[in-house]
C-alpha cells in the first residue's frame, strides 16, 4: 500500500508534530507534499483551538475578577448605606424618616445597579458560551429602532435630550430582534449618557449592497482616534468621561451580539466630525 519511504516520512511528520516543530519539507505536485501541507494546516488549527481554550480560561478568570471588582462598589455602597440605615434606625424616635427613606432609596439604586451588572454579565456569559443563541432572521429596521428608542426615552427626557429618527418601514436586515435591541439600547444609552443637557441624538439609516447601517449621532464629546480600537474592550470607559453611572460592559456586549449576526460596529473618531457617531452594520 505505502512504500517504506512514505511510511518513514509519515513517522517523521508525526514525531515533528509531537515535538511541536513540524515544517513542510518542500512544495511540489506530489500527494505527500499536499499531505504535509494539510498536516501543517491541521496542526495550526489545533494550536489555534488550544489557544482558544487558553483564552477561554483566561477570560473566565478575568470574568470572575471583573465580577468581584465590579460588584465591589455597589456591594460596599449597599453595606455602607445599610450601616447608615441601621445607625439611623437605632436612634429610635429621633430617627429621621427623610434620611431613612434616602438611605433606602440609595440601597435600592445600588441594588438596581448590581442587578443590571449581574444581568449583563449573565447575558454576556450566556452569549459567549452559546447557551443563548443569536438567531438572525429578516426583520424590520424601524421596529428595532423604535423599540430601542422607547427603552431610553425616559432617560433622555430627564436630560432633555431629543431623539430623532426618520421612519422608513421598507428597510429590512438580518438580525435577532431581541439581542440586537439589547445592543442598540446600549449604544443609545451611551449616547444619552455622554450627551450634554438639552442635546440631540439623531438616528438615521444607510443602505449598502451587503449591509444595512444604523448611524447613531450625538453631540457629546465623541471618541478620540486612539480610543476607537479600545472602546469595545470589556469595562472600558472613555478617558474624557469620568465615572458616571453605568458600567463599561455595554459596548463589549453590543459588539459581540452584532458579530454573531455577521455584522460589525464602526466608530467615527471625533477628529473626523464633531460629536460622537457610532454605526451598526447589519447584514441584509
Amino acid at each position, binding site marked *: 500500500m505505502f512504500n517504506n519511504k512514505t511510511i518513514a516520512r509519515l513517522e517523521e511528520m508525526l514525531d515533528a508534530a509531537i515535538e511541536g*516543530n*513540524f*515544517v*513542510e519539507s*518542500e*512544495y*511540489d*505536485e506530489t500527494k505527500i*507534499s*499536499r499531505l504535509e*501541507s494539510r498536516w*501543517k*494546516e491541521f496542526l*495550526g*488549527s489545533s*494550536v*489555534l483551538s488550544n*489557544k482558544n481554550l487558553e483564552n477561554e480560561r483566561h477570560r473566565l478568570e478575568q470574568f470572575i475578577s471583573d465580577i468581584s471588582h465590579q460588584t465591589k462598589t455597589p456591594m460596599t455602597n449597599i453595606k455602607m448605606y445599610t450601616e447608615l440605615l441601621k445607625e439611623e434606625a437605632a436612634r429610635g424616635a429621633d430617627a429621621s424618616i427623610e434620611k431613612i427613606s434616602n438611605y433606602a432609596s440609595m440601597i435600592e439604586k445600588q441594588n438596581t445597579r448590581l442587578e443590571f451588572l449581574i444581568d449583563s454579565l449573565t447575558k454576556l456569559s450566556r452569549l459567549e458560551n452559546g447557551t443563548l443563541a443569536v438567531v438572525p432572521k429578516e426583520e424590520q429596521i424601524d421596529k428595532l429602532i423604535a423599540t430601542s428608542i422607547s427603552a431610553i426615552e425616559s432617560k433622555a427626557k430627564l436630560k432633555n435630550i431629543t431623539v430623532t429618527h426618520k421612519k422608513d418601514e421598507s428597510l429590512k436586515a438580518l438580525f435577532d430582534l431581541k439581542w440586537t435591541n439589547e445592543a442598540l439600547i446600549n449604544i443609545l444609552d451611551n449616547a444619552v449618557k455622554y450627551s450634554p443637557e438639552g442635546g440631540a441624538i439623531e438616528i438615521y439609516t444607510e443602505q*449598502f*449592497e*451587503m*449591509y444595512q*447601517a444604523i448611524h447613531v449621532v450625538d453631540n457629546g464629546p465623541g471618541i478620540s482616534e486612539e480610543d*476607537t*480600537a479600545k472602546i469595545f474592550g470589556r469595562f472600558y470607559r472613555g478617558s474624557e468621561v469620568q465615572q458616571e453611572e453605568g458600567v463599561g460592559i455595554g459596548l463589549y456586549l453590543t459588539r459581540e451580539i452584532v*458579530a454573531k449576526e*455577521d*455584522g*460589525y460596529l*464602526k466608530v467615527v*473618531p471625533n477628529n*473626523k466630525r464633531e460629536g460622537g457617531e457610532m454605526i451598526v*452594520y447589519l447584514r441584509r
Partner: protein
Amino acid sequence: MSILVAENLTKHYGQDDTLVKALDGVSLSVERGEFVSIIGTSGSGKSTLLHMLGGLDTPTSGTVIIDDKDISKLKGDELCIFRRRKIGFIFQSFNLVPSISVYDNIILPIQLDGKQVDKDFVSNVIETLGLQSKLNVLPSKLSGGQQQRVAIARALASKPAIILADEPTGNLDSKTSQDVLGLLKTTGKKFNQTMVMITHNDEIAQMADRTIRIEDGRIK
C-alpha cells in the same frame, strides 16, 4: 504564536547611483487570526512588502517565515505551489480569471491542488459573501464590488494560512468599499482567518485590529 514573521527585509532595485531601497530592514509579525493593516503612502514600499510576504517577489536580503516555513529560499514552481496552498490574494484589480464562472474561480485554487472541494465550507463562504445567485455567471458580468467579493471568497475557500489584500478597495467607490471592508472584517473573524491588508487610507486601516505604518521602506 505568529503565523507570519518577517525579519529585516530589504529589497533594492538598480545599482549604485540609481539604487532604490524599496524596503529597508522591515521586521514584523502577525498572529494567527489577526487582522492587520499596513498603511503607507504610495511609494512607501508597502506593495513591495506585500509581494515579499506573498512570495510573488524575492527579497534582496532578510527572511519571510510563513507557517514556520522560510519562503525566501523557495523558487519557481515550488513558490507557486506554496502560494496556492498557503496564501490567498485579494488584489485591487480583482484579478479573476475572466473565462471561467464565478464558482469555478472560487474553487480554482483548490482544484489546482487536486483537492476535494469542502462543499459545506465553500457554500458557507459563498453564502456569507452573498454570492449564491451569481455562481454560474462570468466575472465580467459582475459589478466591481461583486467581483471583489468573489476574490474574497476565492481567498477564503482554500483555507490558506494567510490572506493578503492589496488595496482591496482601491478600484471601488466609497460605499462599495465599506461593504467589502465589512466583509473582510467579519469573514476574517468568522473563519478565523489571518489577514494582512495594505492601504493608504487611515479610515480603511482603522477597520483592522492592528495598524502598521510604513514610510520610505521602514516601519514607523
